[in-house]
């Protein structure tokens, strides 16, 4: 996903194939200058570790004001005022004074908010969020998620939220893609996926989770084997070494992502409901 806005330097990270389309332009074919423009203004990114988004030796205010001047052509006063609004919008009290602070003077939750403010600075149409709440406590996470949902409404931007937390994403996304070892293995509207998971990995993952609202003492399903090592390129289905439905064909051919319903796509040779091959 990082490669989508080319944050991975071309060597050593490589985009081996495929296209990444954004508003009709293929991001992989743009020049570096064009990419920088798209990245700053139309696509923004937030991360797990907010310090990576900030320059530690510049004040938060300066880092908000500069892109407003450069990308949106505002004068200093306008930019200053917008920066203040942005900090206020993400719930930072005393925004005017806090503009003079350096990133390290903010607490963890505040830094995450300031990073979101910075991502929003040029009114992006797409926000890519890479586990931005993973390092936060749940009460702070709830505040951030609430904030992001409100901003999504107000600003009408699209969000790609990368996470390993199937609880968090259930309350946030409209559609979900499940990835395993670098492949999308299932894709569906959010309610469809949780109600009718299809891929053996998705099913096991959902059965391995405990639920906050039940005392159900069923045994948690454990997925045997180890998480995938991304170094070896599999010759067949990447989940085969851990899959209880695995058969001959799975080792030899990579299953393609195919529709099993109008909006529901799965990459698996088997229909786990019948245990038979469905392709």
């Amino acid at each position, binding site marked *: 996903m990082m490669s989508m806005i080319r944050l991975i330097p071309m060597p050593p990270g490589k985009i081996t194939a495929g296209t990444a389309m954004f508003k009709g332009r293929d991001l992989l074919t743009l020049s570096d200058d064009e990419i920088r423009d798209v990245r700053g203004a139309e696509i923004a990114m937030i991360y797990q570790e907010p310090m990576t988004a900030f320059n530690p030796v510049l004040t938060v205010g300066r880092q908000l004001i500069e892109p407003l001047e450069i990308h949106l052509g505002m004068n200093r006063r306008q930019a200053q005022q917008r920066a203040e609004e942005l900090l206020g919008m993400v*719930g930072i009290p005393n925004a005017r004074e806090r503009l003079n602070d350096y990133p390290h003077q903010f*607490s*963890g*939750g*505040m830094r995450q908010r300031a990073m979101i403010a910075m991502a929003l600075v040029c009114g992006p149409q797409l926000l890519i969020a890479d586990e931005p709440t993973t390092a936060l*406590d*749940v*009460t*702070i*996470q*709830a*505040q951030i998620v*609430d904030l992001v949902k409100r901003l999504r409404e107000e600003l009408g931007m699209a969000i790609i939220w990368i996470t*390993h*937390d*199937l*609880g*968090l994403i*259930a*309350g946030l996304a409209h559609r979900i893609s499940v990835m395993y070892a670098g492949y999308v293995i299932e894709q569906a509207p*959010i*309610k469809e996926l*949780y*109600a009718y998971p299809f891929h053996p990995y998705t099913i*096991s*993952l*959902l059965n*391995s*989770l*405990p*639920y*906050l*609202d039940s*005392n159900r003492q069923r*045994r*948690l*399903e*454990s*997925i045997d084997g*180890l*998480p995938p090592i991304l170094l070896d390129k599999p010759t067949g289905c990447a989940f085969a070494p*851990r899959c209880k439905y695995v058969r001959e064909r799975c080792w030899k051919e990579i299953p393609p992502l195919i529709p099993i319903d109008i909006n529901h796509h799965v990459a698996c040779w088997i229909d786990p409901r019948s245990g038979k091959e469905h392709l």
Partner: protein
Amino acid sequence: MSEVLLQVQNLVKYFPIKRGIIFKREVGRVHAVDDVTFDIYRGETLGLVGESGCGKSTTGRTILQLYRPSSGRIVFDGDNLVDLQGEALRLKRRRMQMIFQDPYASLNPRMTVGEIISEPLIVHGIAKGQKAEAEVMRLLGLVGLNPAFINRFPHEFSGGQRQRIGIARALALNPSLVVCDEPISALDVSIQAQVVNLLGDLQTQLGLTYLFIAHDLSMVRYICTRVAVMYLGVIVELGNREDLYETPLHPYTQALISAVPIPDPVKEEQRQRILLSGDVPSPINPPTGCRFRTRCPLAADVCAEQRPEFREMKLGHWVACHKV
């Protein structure tokens, strides 16, 4: 399950903050644990939950006397550990072990699995040589690892397997209490269930008592019989799993539980969240009165003036709040 194995009474642990190069003087203190009282019953799993920095690990480590408490009593199997020294303490400490969050950092990378697991046996003069090796093999089997791995090094194992090694080592001395400090937090989601199931099986097989420290409230509900909620160095609520999750009394517990996502989009759509404002204050200068008052939606004047007493509201359900 009514026999008390461990009593923690008015436990306090401050860490001094020192400044100065030659003459170090104390310029402040981290109030990591500040007057905490609870019991653990034999055979149960007591969950200790709360957000990072609230004092969970310090509580666990102080119980095991890895840190000496600033004040308070820790009565284990009838003896106050705080009064014990040397050999007497060492003998008691054998019965209490710890499993750590980061299975890699807690295993010596230059020792083989066999050396790691047998070390406590040798140090305590329980077994050595072939007898120790046989014991290591047994322990490896117990935690679901192939006994043939005895001569391998920690880096040859996955995260989940390393956590199993840590568990085998903790069980070597046949403890009755095991403090599990976030034992699954660092593991891949697909591996967490394996370790949780293993801990459950071992408890049934060996009659272990667990203090299970975690911040994943869903997992704690699944694993624990009773749960204590900590905030900024104090326990704000303690009760049976059902009581605590179904009818939480403390405003912090209510907010905490409401903040935990449920992996079900239909339920998530219907849920009402109690959103707290602001961040957790510093444990160096914790708020007067109730520690939670700076974020509490119900805070009143009395909350700044008096520390709320930890009271039993109904049988076994304790809470520290003026407004309950």
